[in-house]
């Protein structure tokens, strides 16, 4: 009975993604005839997905896993198979729940944010949300890298659609374009990576004995064992050593990750993407698009674990991004901008965790972040509704009394974000830093990542509470803030749900506590320990140790935890000191040039825009001029020369018959001479 129920659960698993796809189709074609512009279909679909995901999670919790092909795009004998498949293991099951939950809540929230605000184009909006959910869910349960790429790209499309939702204005379409382009730039490397992985291993499966991480592992083992290359003999490594080549492959895929997860230097699209409706921001930044990158690394962690170089780079980039983005968040005025940079920063932590060998920690943070960041965005959305779509924090203030539900939910999210004990973010962030530290003691690159991550905590604490204080505390600074718009249930319910989760979800993996007490309460760790062989934590740890040469220094988790908590509190305290008054000053202006630098995001946008516009279009213009003048000029030149010479040639025909006779005779003489000389008549 249990077996059949398990089998049935896996049979219907594709419906997790297909339900939102159906809602997409319904909203697109029938949305304008439906009440709420298709929202109900979306809510029903994602609700269904959520239930199914929970069912799958329960099934997986029972120890079952699933790894099957479900739809074959192309089957080519003796060559690569392109197919869609289902890989249901603890990681994907967990992620399915997160995604479908956030998606469901965002749909719900949208009723209040979009419908109640009299927006146009609701069918388009809900269709976009549906497609987004579909793509992300399908991405999550993808069983091969090709399928991941397919849905990774679709996620990009959806982000373009949703960010550019308000297309009648100038900024959103531009932001949408930027988001798509920057991520596409990353996807270019990803695409090369997928193709190269296909070409190298002949497969892009994530799991199983024929999967590419397994093959790579065998190849490396073979290469280590025998002089002739052993297991690598089967694989074409394009003239590199297998280890080097796998690192290159890892970097290529990482390009896509950096783009989608908005890591330095491809993070510039994300703040601009705030031009989209706020629920969309919640969806993009909490659970879907941005998470996709980190999830992808986690998904193929078995492959990355083979390459210490790739891991170190991931960790360093992550740490750097965490600090870098946090510093920019400090000076922003727009509530969504602050959240945007905090998102970048938080994903930097996840990357740091992954790179530092803290697979569980990163997944943990991915989960907690999904909840508290969704919460923060939705909370910000609620504030924005209340503020009649004003987003500048300096126009707010004192909303605590008017919007108590929002305030407390938002506060819970903020505490989680800042990493204050015992909220969710504390546990997960702390674990990442701990992993980075223990592995980093043997690796300077990791240690650098750790230090940057640690420093970022201060900034995080500061900007988080600056945001909270400016928004909710003090006196209302504008008329709107004094008379905010009231909020409906559809806004409040998601906030409450997420607020609870942000508060308690961290408790599932209290590593310091577990270490200190010896209790087996690291539930997430346990959860990820089982599943498909080769995709488990144990396996990753083993590979990290044997292949990548990671070794953990033995260190109590308590001290680092206390350190990071202290830093977070210091940041928060600074914010409190500066902004707690009824009418806080613009303290950041005292930073002077640094503030300008930070407001301008270290001029990252400028150089990227310069590359894209000035340089790109410059080269394009040059090419065009070259094409018009040289290439096409040659073509036209040939015709002109022909016609000109034609005009010359016809002047031979002077009209005077004596000249004709002369030329005729001359021609004859020439003919006689040439043939005569050839035939030797004159000898």
């Amino acid at each position, binding site marked *: 009975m249990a077996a059949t129920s398990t089998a049935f659960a896996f049979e219907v698993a594709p419906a997790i993604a297909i339900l939102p796809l159906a809602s997409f189709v319904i909203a697109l074609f029938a949305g304008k005839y439906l009440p709420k512009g298709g929202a109900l279909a979306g809510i029903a679909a994602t609700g269904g997905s959520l239930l199914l995901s929970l069912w799958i999670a329960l099934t997986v919790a029972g120890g079952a896993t699933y790894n099957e092909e479900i739809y074959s795009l192309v089957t080519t004998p003796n060559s690569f198979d392109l197919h869609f498949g289902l890989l249901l293991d603890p990681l994907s099951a967990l992620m399915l729940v997160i995604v479908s939950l956030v998606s469901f809540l965002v749909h719900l929230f949208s009723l209040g944010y979009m419908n109640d605000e009299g927006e146009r184009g609701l069918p388009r909006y809900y269709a976009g949300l549906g497609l987004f959910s579909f793509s992300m869910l399908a991405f999550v349960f993808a069983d091969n890298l090709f399928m991941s790429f397919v849905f990774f790209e679709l996620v990009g499309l959806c982000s373009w659609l949703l960010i550019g939702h308000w297309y009648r204005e100038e900024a959103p379409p531009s932001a949408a374009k930027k988001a798509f382009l920057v991520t596409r730039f990353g996807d270019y490397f990803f695409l090369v990576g997928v193709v190269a992985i296909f070409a190298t291993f002949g497969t892009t499966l994530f799991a199983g004995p024929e999967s590419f991480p397994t093959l790579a592992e065998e190849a490396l083992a073979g290469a280590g064992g025998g002089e002739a290359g052993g297991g690598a003999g089967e694989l074409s490594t394009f003239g590199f050593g297998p280890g080097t080549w796998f690192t290159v492959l890892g970097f290529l895929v990482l390009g896509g990750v950096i783009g989608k997860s908005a890591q330095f230097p491809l993070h510039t699209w994300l703040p601009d993407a705030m031009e989209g409706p706020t629920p969309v921001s919640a969806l993009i930044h909490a659970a879907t698009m941005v998470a996709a990158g980190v999830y992808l690394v986690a998904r193929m962690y078995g492959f990355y674990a083979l390459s210490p170089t790739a891991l170190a780079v991931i960790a360093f980039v992550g740490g750097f991004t965490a600090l870098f983005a946090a510093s920019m968040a400090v000076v922003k005025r727009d509530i969504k901008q602050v959240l945007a940079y905090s998102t970048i920063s938080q994903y930097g932590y996840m990357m740091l965790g992954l790179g530092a060998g803290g697979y569980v920690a990163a997944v943990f943070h991915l989960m907690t972040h999904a909840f508290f960041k969704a919460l923060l965005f939705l909370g910000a959305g609620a504030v924005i509704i209340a503020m009649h779509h004003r987003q500048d924090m300096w126009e707010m203030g004192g909303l605590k009394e008017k919007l108590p539900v929002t305030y407390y939910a938002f506060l819970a999210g903020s505490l989680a974000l800042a990493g204050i004990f015992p909220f969710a973010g504390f546990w997960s962030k702390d674990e990442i830093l701990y992993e980075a530290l223990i592995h980093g003691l043997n690796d300077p690159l990791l240690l650098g990542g750790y230090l940057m991550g640690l420093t970022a905590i201060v900034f995080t604490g500061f900007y988080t509470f600056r945001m909270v204080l400016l928004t909710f505390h003090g006196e209302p600074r504008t008329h709107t803030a004094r008379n905010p718009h009231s909020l409906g249930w559809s806004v409040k319910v998601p906030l409450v749900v997420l607020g609870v989760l942000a508060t308690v979800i961290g408790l599932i993996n209290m590593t310091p506590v577990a270490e200190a007490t010896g209790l087996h309460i690291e539930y997430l760790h346990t959860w990820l320990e089982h599943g498909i062989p080769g995709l488990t934590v144990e396996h990753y740890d083993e590979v990290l140790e044997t292949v990548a040469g990671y070794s953990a220094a033995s260190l109590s988790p308590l001290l680092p935890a206390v350190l990071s908590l202290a830093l977070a509190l210091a940041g928060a305290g600074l914010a409190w000191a500066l902004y707690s008054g009824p009418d806080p000053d613009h303290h950041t202006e005292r930073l002077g040039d640094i503030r300008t630098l930070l407001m301008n995001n270290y001029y990252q946008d400028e150089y990227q825009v310069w590359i894209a516009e000035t340089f790109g279009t410059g080269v394009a213009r040059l090419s065009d001029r070259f094409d018009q003048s040289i290439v096409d000029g040659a073509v036209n030149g040939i*015709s002109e020369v*022909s*016609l000109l*010479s*034609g*005009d010359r*040639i*016809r002047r*031979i*025909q002077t*009209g005077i*018959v004596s000249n*004709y*006779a002369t*030329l*005729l005779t*001359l*021609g*004859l003489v020439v*003919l*006689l001479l*040439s*043939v*005569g000389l*050839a*035939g*030797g*008549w*004159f000898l």
Partner: protein
Amino acid sequence: MTGGLGVGVLQTAPPIGDWVALAPVLLLALTALALFVIDSVDPDDASGGGALAGTAAVGTLLALVAAIALLIAGIGQGQGGALRLYGGQLIVDGMALFFTVIFTSVATLVIVASYDYLRDRVYQAEYYVLMLLATTGMALMASSGSLATVFISLELASLPSYALVAFLKDNRGSVEAGIKYFLIGALSSAIFAYGISLVYGATGRLGLEAIARSLSGGTQLVGILGVGVLMVAGGFAFKTASVPFHFWAPEAYEGAPAPVSAFLSSASKAAGFVVAFRVFAVAFSPEAVVASVDWTLAFWLLAAVTMTLGNFAAATQDKVKRMLAYSSVGHAGYVLIGLAALNSGQNGLVLGASMIHLLVYGFMNTGAFLFVALAEYWEVGRTFEDYNGLGTQAPIACVAMTVFMFSLAGLPVGGGFMSKYFILVGAVGTGHFLLAALLLINSALSLYYYSRVVRSLWFEEPANSIGIEGYPLGLYAAVVGAAVVTFLLLPGIFLVSDAAISAASALFV
């Protein structure tokens, strides 16, 4: 020695069958005489030229039918070999009949068109007589078996042509064209005659096969033979309007009445080629002569220069008729490839390709000039701009003209596509890549200027409203007929290609 010259042959009078074999020629000549009679009986021609044109057309048509019948009947082809009449002075074989078909077809078209063109003009009888005599001369050229008959029949074709070009006696253009044509023609025929005398000097013979026999053992008189051969080639170059004997052509074609231009540029050119084919293939057969007198080199040069000059000069013309005249020179260059490539193993193919091209050219070029005749009849003017927007006024004729132009350019809307590519195949197959490349360049250019006509007809708005008065039946019939044949020769090329290639191959047996 005595017997070697075929005195024995002198005794045998041609059997009846041989008269039958000459039926097309005889029909043409008799029609000419009949026209004289008609003219003397009814000098004022109450029918406005109808009787004359009708008689002439019927005569050429009968000759055409006779030629086709003989061709189908296999006279002079196949096992028995060519029919040699008058002691080998005249030869009836596949090639002769094939070209007779070309001449008579063109003549028929032109005569039908002339009925309208010449309406209410004087000297109609002379016009038709001259045209028929010229056709007779051409048919005889195709059948000539000796340099003597070649020369005389060439003159028979030429002399009436001079007069026909100058037919519009009070039109300066026509007269000027006539005098130029005549003067260059006279000069060329003098050179030709001198060439014949030198060939005679080198071989002691005038019969083509006799010359071949004489040369087969090699000759000491290489230089004399060489000069003779080249001068003979010059005579043919005049007739075919090949550089440097082409100077008359643009003027004559432009100045002459358009039907005469059609006649000259199609039939007369073909006549020049057929006799060149026969003389060079039979008398100066490449195997025997080319080693010392490399006339293929000469024709190679002629082909290259002719097609290039013709096409380049045509590209920038303002007047349609003159453009066609130069393009006619260009086409002569294409056909010359057939002669230039004769020294390699594919003789039947390359010569056959040239013959096919001449046949198709006979229709498409005649048709094009007859369209110009139509335009002259309508008095719309003669430049490209004057033709603007004709497509809306006279769509049928313009479709026909489009077919001609594209077919001339070698696009697959007519037989010209097939024939041009056959020539190209021949050039490539015999390794004449340079000629093939030149053909390519020239084709591109020709496409440009031919499509200028199409552009005027269809794409441009008429500058001023042209009043087209009437749709002359004869001209239309001729133009449309030529277009239909041109078009049908695309899928139906197999009707003639086998005959042409086997007729050409027969020369080399």
